[in-house]
C-alpha cells in the first residue's frame, strides 16, 4: 500500500474534506503562505486560495473564538493552533465557549469545529513549548479529544472529526509528522471511540497513545525477546474513550501499564488506573502501573529532557515490575 508521512496524511484529509464541503476552511498562524510550521497545511493555499486558507495574527483566543462564531453560523472551521502550548492562551474560549455552547443553550446550536494542534516534547523546546495537557480537556466535558499515532489513524480520524457536529480537539505530535505509514488511496473514515490493537499479547496490557504508542511497541519488541508478550492498545481518542477495549484486554492479561507523555500527577493514566481498579478489582494480579513524565517543567538540556520524558526503557521497567 502507498506510504505517506503523518503530515501528508493530515494535509490530504483536509484537502479532501475541503473539496467535499465548501463550508470547510482552515485558519491559523502561518497555515497559508508559509504552508504550516509542520507542513500539515502545505499546498492548501495554492488549491483553495486565501479565502479558505486564512493566515491569522498571533492571537489564539481570537482564532478559536472566530472559529466558534463561524461554526455557529454554519461553517465548518478547522483552525490550527501552531502548537498545543497555545491552547493554554485560548483556554477560556475552548473550555467556556466552544465546549459549553451546545449544552448551556439547551442544544440550539451545532458546533462543528475541529481545532488541530501538535503537542509533546523531545526536541529541547523547553518548559513552555513541550506540553502534553490532553488531561485538562478530557476533564472538561463538551469537547472531543482525538490523538492519532499513525498516518493512517491521523487521516481517517481527522476526516471524521471535520464531519462531526461536535467540537474536536485534534492533538498531533511534533515528532510524529515525519513518520511514514501505509495510507490507502481510496477514501476511508475511522469512527471516534474505537481503540486499535497495535500489537496482541497475553501477558500484560500496555495502553499508550500518540508518540508513546511507538515507544510501547519498541518496548514490546524488547520484552518479546525475554518471553513476555505485551499487548499494545492505542485508544486513539481520549474522549470518547473505548473502555470496553481496555477492560476486555486487561480482563485477559490481568496486568496493565498506562503510558503517557504528560505529567504523572492527575494525568490520564490516573483515570485509567482508577477505572481499571474499580472495574477489575478482583481480576488484577498487580497494581496498574503508570509511566509518565516527571512532575517538573520540561527542562531544555538534552540529558534532562531525556530523563523526564517517558521512553521504551521506562515501559520495559514498568512491565517487568509486574510480570516478574
Amino acid at each position, binding site marked *: 500500500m502507498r506510504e505517506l508521512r503523518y503530515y501528508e496524511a493530515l494535509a490530504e484529509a483536509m484537502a479532501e474534506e475541503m473539496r467535499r464541503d465548501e463550508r470547510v*476552511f482552515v485558519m491559523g498562524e502561518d497555515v497559508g503562505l508559509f504552508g504550516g510550521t509542520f507542513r500539515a497545511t502545505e499546498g492548501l493555499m495554492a488549491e483553495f486560495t486565501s*479565502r479558505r486558507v*486564512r493566515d*491569522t*495574527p498571533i*492571537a489564539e*483566543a*481570537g482564532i*478559536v*473564538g*472566530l*472559529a*466558534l*462564531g*463561524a*461554526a*455557529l*453560523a*454554519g*461553517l465548518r*472551521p478547522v483552525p490550527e493552533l501552531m502548537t498545543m502550548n497555545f491552547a493554554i492562551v485560548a483556554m*477560556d*474560549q475552548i473550555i*467556556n*465557549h466552544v465546549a459549553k*455552547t*451546545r*449544552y*448551556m*443553550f*439547551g*442544544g*440550539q*446550536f*451545532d458546533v462543528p469545529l475541529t481545532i488541530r494542534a501538535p503537542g509533546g516534547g523531545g526536541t529541547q523546546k523547553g518548559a513552555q513549548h513541550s506540553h502534553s495537557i490532553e488531561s485538562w480537556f478530557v476533564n472538561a*466535558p*463538551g469537547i*472531543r479529544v482525538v490523538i492519532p499515532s499513525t498516518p493512517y489513524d491521523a487521516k481517517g480520524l481527522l476526516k471524521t472529526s471535520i464531519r*462531526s*457536529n*461536535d467540537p474536536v480537539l485534534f492533538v498531533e505530535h511534533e515528532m510524529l509528522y515525519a513518520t511514514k505509514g501505509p495510507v490507502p488511496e481510496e477514501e476511508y473514515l475511522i469512527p*471516534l*471511540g474505537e481503540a486499535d490493537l497495535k500489537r496482541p499479547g497475553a501477558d500484560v496490557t500496555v495502553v499508550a497513545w500518540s508518540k508513546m504508542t511507538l515507544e510501547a511497541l519498541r518496548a514490546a519488541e524488547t520484552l518479546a525477546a525475554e518471553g513476555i508478550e505485551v499487548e499494545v492498545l492505542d485508544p486513539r481518542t481520549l*474522549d*470518547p*474513550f*473505548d*473502555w*470496553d477495549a481496555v477492560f476486555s484486554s486487561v480482563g485477559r492479561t490481568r496486568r496493565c501499564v498506562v503510558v503517557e507523555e504528560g505529567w504523572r500527577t492527575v494525568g490520564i493514566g490516573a483515570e485509567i488506573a482508577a477505572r481499571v481498579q474499580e472495574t477489575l478489582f478482583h481480576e488484577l494480579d498487580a497494581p496498574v502501573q503508570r509511566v509518565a513524565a516527571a512532575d517538573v517543567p520540561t527542562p531544555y538540556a538534552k540529558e534532562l529532557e531525556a530523563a523526564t520524558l517517558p521512553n521504551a526503557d521506562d515501559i520495559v521497567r514498568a512491565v517487568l515490575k509486574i510480570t516478574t
Partner: protein
Amino acid sequence: MIAETDKIRLYRKMLLIRRIEERVAEMYGEQKIGGFTHLYIGQEAVAVGAISALNHDDYVISTYRDHGHFLARDGDPNKFMAELYGRETGICRGKGGSMHLADAEHHFYGGTAIVGGSIPIAAGLGLACSYRDDDRIVMCLFGDGATNQGVWHEGLNFAKLWNLPVIFVCENNFYGIGTDVRQSSSLSEVYKKASGYGMPGYRVNGMDVLEVRQACDEVVKLVRGGSGPALIEARCYRYQGHSMTDPGRYRSRAEEDLWRKRDPIPRMAKMLLADGVVSEERLAEMEHEIEDICEEAVAFADQSPAPSASALFEGVFAEHYPSDPHA
C-alpha cells in the same frame, strides 16, 4: 427619519422590557429565580434602538446582561421567564438561566458570563457572513468593562484586518460592577479606542432611543455596504445594582438622581404625546397589554415543569458514545 408607527413600536418594546424585568426582580425576591440575575433597567433605549436597526436574519450576540437584548430581538417572553425559572419550557430548556439566553430562531447567539468572551465570537459570525458573501451583518453588545479584556483587542483587530461586517456596541454605563470606567480604562471615552484599530468610532446618547436608532441606521447602512466594522459607544446608566445582590455603595445619590431624570421611557412618552403621535388613552392601553404579557409569562413559567432528571445528560454532544455520561 423614523416613521411614527416605528416610534410607537420602539416605545412599546422599551416598556415591555422595563415591565417584564420589574416582574423578574419580584420573582427573584420570591426565589423563583436564582443564580446571577443582572437587570437591564435604565438601558432599554440602547437595546431597542440598536437591535431594531437590524434585519431579521442579521446576527446578534450579547453578554450576561442579556434580558433587554433577548426581548429587543423579539424573543418570546414566556420562554424567557421560564428560562429564568429554570424550567423545561425555557428557551434553553432551563440549562442556561438569566446569563445564557440564546435564541436560534432569531439568530441571537446568546449571553456569555465571561466578560469579553463574545467579542471574537462576534467577529467569527462576521467571518461567516463575509465568507459566504451574503449581506448579513453582526451586532455585538457589551459593557465598558469588557473593553479592557485581551479578547476584545483580538476581536477588534481581526474584524478590521479582515474587513468583517460587525458593529461593536459598547453600552457604557460607567461602571463594571463597582469600578468606575475611569479606574479601568486608560481611555475612558470608549469610542476613541477604535482609533487603535483604524476603525471608525461613534458616541451616542444611550438614553435616547431615537438617537440610538438613527445612528445605528446609518452605521448599519455603511457596514452592510462593505465599510468594515465600526464601534459605537452608547452612554447609559443602569438604575439597579449590578446584580440582584449588589449593595451599590459606590455610586452617589446625586449621580443616580441625575440619570433617573433622563429615563428613556417617560422621556419618550412625553415626546410622543407632545408630537401627538399617541394619546394618553393609547399609552394606558399599552400598559395594560404589556401587563397581560407579563402576567402570562409569569403564569407560563409557574405552570411549566422542571427539567426531567434525564435532561442532565442530554445535549452535551450531538453524537453519542458509550463512554459519555448517562443516567
